């Protein structure tokens, strides 16, 4: 990743000027849990300030409390010396704060113009559609965004949505712009463009507060870095130049030694990705064979176009693609949620093109879905139901009746074996933390009978210790001769775990690489800047 595109911080005002944002004794509670506890912090104007921490450290809650979206239990927020009323979005926006949300605040069926108009603080009572669209068309053009004001939000790619959010946030001319995990949804080239855009915004005098969790990105972008851990401030704003990746990693994870090591490893140059030795036998029958697969057009994403790939026993095949280029369609097609319009799917040599998900699972297919909380577990069902649903759907022949007592015992066994931290098997899955939910899913999906594992974004949003655990688990599976299809937007992860990487572009296979991987080559293939390589 290059840094030339970003102007140096030398041009920003000196520290010591009045704080752009000062927070005193801020505490936010959800029920009995203190998400943010007694945080006092001040940010100098005209700079990019990063707030970092693990998942659950309270970063997003802190940002939302500043924005007035969350009402603090105690403490105050001061913007350029003026105290804001707590929990009042309207007052915060009027005072000059605006926020770009990680999952975007844009209603899907709205047109671009409508979504932008929604955020105008003091709109006229009645509008004319054509006037409104013309006005926003100018704004979009000035910001360099290629989107029609008449386009529907749901039809736009993620990078455009984020650019829209930024335009929307800047439309009110805020003095403080907050961004919540803006890089989590973007592919590497878009992250570079985002960082350049943020630097340009800083140059206009706007103070930027950015919530991040990747050490490398933080040190590349931010002027100062602050660290939250368990809701408390452990590092006040400190110039990024005074920090090393190792020190920052330690501050983020605290005393946990393995996780700290993982944090440092992540911060290290990704070109040094460890290439696992291939375990697979080249002539074995592939666990998964996809030949000439195409799917029907879908709204949000490119459909598959004539995709062919193979996964052999003991092999991890990584899928690298910019969000929206067919990785979701591929996973859904392999799992059996969508049917192919053309082509063929085989699991262990058996044709499953027309087979239902259940039939594929009987043949050893297991899946770790994109979204843990909605696709991976039923948050309002008990732990034992979430763990045993797999075997309930594939009952042994002759077992018409089941007993909840036996199922509870089975669930206890599975959860304990995977070190899930829980109170009782009767508690709801939604009460577990993200890492523990992922372990629950593993306990269900990665039993001894797993032949083909589709792992979609298995570490997204997990903290460093949990991430390390997931990657280790995938490698263990490979050693047991299972085939693994790993889809991840985190190139570090793909490089670290995969034996081969297949790049999807516009729903078709653009290139295939064997380890050791070159970031430049894979990145270029992902954006279509290269000939299909070997």
């Amino acid at each position, binding site marked *: 990743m290059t840094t030339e595109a970003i102007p140096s911080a030398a041009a920003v005002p000196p520290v010591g000027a009045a704080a752009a944002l000062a927070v005193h004794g801020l505490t936010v509670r959800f029920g009995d849990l203190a998400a943010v506890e007694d945080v006092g912090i001040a940010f100098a104007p005209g700079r990019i300030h990063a707030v970092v921490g693990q998942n659950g450290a309270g970063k997003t809650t802190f940002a939302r409390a500043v924005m007035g979206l969350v009402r603090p239990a105690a403490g105050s927020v001061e913007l350029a010396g003026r105290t804001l009323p707590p929990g009042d979005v309207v007052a915060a926006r009027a005072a000059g704060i605006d926020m770009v949300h990680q999952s975007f605040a844009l209603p899907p069926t709205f047109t671009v113009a409508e979504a932008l108009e929604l955020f105008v603080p003091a709109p006229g009572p009645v509008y004319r559609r054509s006037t409104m669209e013309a006005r926003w068309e100018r704004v979009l053009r000035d910001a360099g965004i290629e989107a029609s004001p008449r386009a529907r939000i749901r039809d736009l790619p993620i990078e455009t949505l984020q650019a829209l959010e930024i335009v929307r946030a800047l439309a009110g001319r805020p003095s403080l712009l907050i961004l919540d995990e803006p890089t989590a949804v973007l592919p590497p080239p878009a992250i570079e463009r985002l960082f350049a855009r943020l630097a340009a915004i800083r140059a206009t005098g706007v103070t930027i507060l950015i919530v991040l969790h990747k050490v490398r990105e933080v040190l590349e972008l931010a002027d100062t870095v602050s660290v939250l851990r368990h809701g408390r401030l452990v590092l006040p704003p400190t110039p990024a130049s005074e920090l090393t990746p190792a020190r920052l990693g330690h501050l983020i994870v605290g005393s946990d030694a393995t996780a700290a090591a993982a944090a440092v490893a992540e911060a290290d140059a990704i070109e040094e990705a460890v290439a696992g030795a291939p375990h697979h036998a080249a002539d074995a029958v592939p666990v998964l064979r996809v030949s000439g697969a195409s799917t029907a057009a879908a709204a949000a994403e490119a459909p598959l176009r004539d995709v062919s790939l193979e996964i052999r026993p003991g092999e991890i095949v990584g899928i690298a693609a910019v969000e929206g280029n067919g990785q979701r369609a591929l996973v859904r097609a392999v799992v059996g949620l969508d049917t192919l319009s053309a082509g063929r799917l085989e699991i262990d040599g058996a044709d499953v093109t027309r087979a239902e998900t259940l039939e594929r699972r009987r043949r050893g297919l297991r899946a770790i879905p994109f979204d843990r909380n909605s696709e991976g577990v039923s948050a309002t*069902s008990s732990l034992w139901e979430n763990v045993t649903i797999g075997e309930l759907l594939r009952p042994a022949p002759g077992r018409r009746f089941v007993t909840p007592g036996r199922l509870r015992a089975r669930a206890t066994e599975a959860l304990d074996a995977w070190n899930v931290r829980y109170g009782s098997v009767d508690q709801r899955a939604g009460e577990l933390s993200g890492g523990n939910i992922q372990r629950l899913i593993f306990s269900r999906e990665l039993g001894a009978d797993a032949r083909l594992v589709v792992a979609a974004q298995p570490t997204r949003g997990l903290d460093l210790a949990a991430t390390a655990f997931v990657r280790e688990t995938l490698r263990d599976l490979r050693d047991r001769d299972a085939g693994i299809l790993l889809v991840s937007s985190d190139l570090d992860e793909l490089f670290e775990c995969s034996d081969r990487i297949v790049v999807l572009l516009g729903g078709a296979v653009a290139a295939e690489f064997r380890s050791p991987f070159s970031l430049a080559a894979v990145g270029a293939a992902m954006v279509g800047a290269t000939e299909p390589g070997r």
Partner: protein
Amino acid sequence: MSARMARLGPVGRSVALVVASILLVSAVLTLSGFSVLTVANGMWQGAVSAPGAWQMSFRWGAPLFLVAIGVAIALRAGFFNIGGLGQFYVGATAALFVGLGLPGLPAIVVLPLACLAAMAAGALFAFIPGWLRVRYGTDEVITTLMSNFIGTLWLQYVTAVLLKDPSGTGQQTATRPVEEAYRIANVQGVSPVTVGILVAAAILVWLLLERTPFGITSAIAGRNPVMARWQGLRLERVGLLAFLLSGALAGLAGAIEVFGPQGRLVSGFSPQLGFTAVLVAIVGGLNVGGIVLAAAFFGGLQAALLYLPIVTPLPPSALDLLRGTIALLITVTSLSALGRALGRRRARSD
């Protein structure tokens, strides 16, 4: 308060909200000049203690129970079947067709056939909205609501045209009665046969919901269909089966009405049965044991209401007030949120 409600558990919660509704309606009755004690005493007599009272409670509770466990099967799988009334009517007419169409055959042949026909008809009537729902995503709340109107008109047609009792006079149209030999119960509705059918239905549905993979996985699918699909659950099949069972149970309730207390069909009988059964299912916590109690309670209310005129001139619509209030309140999940909202209003106006 919500933490306190959570500690009550689902049973305590249902009981607390029903009691709260009773208190609210009692206040309304007091304000409009009725003595709550007299009314309560009359209701107790009408539902339990007067001669023949508990039989009448059973008579009204039985169809509620059958339709409600059907509603519960669908609701657990995530589908709002509020078409119980239509399915009940269609089932009742099918049973009547068999009862009137096979004269001379022994009851042991006719009755099982009629029950099967009623269940098939109810299931078929539920199949249409169910199939549209699972196959095409057509909203089942609307389609089942519409199917109630269609079922009601169908019953009207059967009673007023097709099987009209030519000797019938009076405002309501009715069909010819079934033969006395086929009756499984008299007007009071309690007989070994009806009790036997209810107990069998209760046990079978309990086994299905609590002791089979279908029962457990369909409940998970009801809470999160997306996750269930990733697990390989055949949502279409499970949903359709839930609709079919739901309709079959409502149809069976219709058959019992025809051969039991009614002995024939009257246009527009038990018009509140469909919505009340949804209420019974929810008050009963969507499980069989709770629904038994809830059906007994609402059946008792209905019986008491018919007895009340002997004691006090309370308008029968008072029961609708109570039913409506319970429906309004029974799914309330958070009282503390109300407190917070009011607290915020106060804080803001300071």
